């Protein structure tokens, strides 16, 4: 057989996907996207809640309990309350950001291991 004949024969062998292949695929893609979004939200909510509670507790401690003119700690901290509050809040936000990054990576690894 000649080159052109091989080409013609192989072209004729092209298979076609079954009916509904594309619709099934697109619905699988949409489903996987929804699952992914749900997963991110589900993981993010408890972390966010913990951080909010921690910040509230910190604010209360710094500005209410330690603000009283009693105890050794209050006199030690004195006027440094605001800088301490900013530093601790920034650290909390930094770790919150790291956790979200880790969460995204774990989703990616999970997805890749699926395929």
């Amino acid at each position, binding site marked *: *057989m000649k080159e052109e004949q091989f080409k013609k*024969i192989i072209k*004729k062998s*092209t298979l076609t996907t079954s009916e509904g*292949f*594309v619709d*099934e*695929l*697109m619905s*699988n893609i949409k489903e996987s996207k929804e699952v992914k979004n749900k997963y991110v939200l589900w993981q993010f909510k408890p972390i966010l809640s913990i951080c909010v509670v921690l910040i509230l507790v910190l604010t209360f401690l710094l500005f209410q309990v330690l603000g009283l003119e009693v105890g050794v700690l209050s006199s030690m901290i004195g006027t440094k309350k605001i800088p301490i509050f900013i530093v601790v809040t920034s650290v909390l936000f930094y770790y919150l950001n790291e956790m979200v990054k880790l969460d995204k990576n774990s989703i990616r690894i999970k997805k890749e291991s699926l395929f």
Partner: protein
Amino acid sequence: MKTKKAIEDYDIIRKVIDGDTNAFRQLVYKYKDVSLSLAYSILKSQTLAEDVLQDVFIKVFNKLKTFKFKSSFSTWLYRIVVNTSYNELKKRKTNISLSEKTNDTTLHLTEDRDYMKEEDQKHYINMALTHMRTDEALVLRLFYLCEFSIKEIEDITKFKPSKIKVDLHRGRENLNFQLKQLLGGDIKHLL
């Protein structure tokens, strides 16, 4: 220089990356049949090839953001198809039913012996390709169906150029032999 086809693909990919999931449908329609044929060359089962292809397209959709607009989308896609199919073959090597490969080797030519339906032609060519070595069938399809160069086939399969040339040569001989075995004199209806 990028071809018109490659530029069209890039536009669709950018749309998908920007969040237009439905644009991905166009890419699927464009490449699904050739991808299926390539997966079938390796897996020798249409059902299994379609299952693998579903996974491949989902994987491609999720990885589209990592696509570098340097190579053509088709080369990138077919590389994933080939890799995923070979991985699936490794997993299932002992489990693949030979029924789809070996069943129905008798001829079902139409009454008119001078004429062979397109579907029959496809059936016998695929049967011949199924009886061939996986690498040979794959290389034949990449070369004649996708019209890739040896270099492009090397990029997709990671086979050495010398192996690709040998597979092409043997593949042509084997295809000719298998078709003669299956069709005898009726091989002329294919040409």
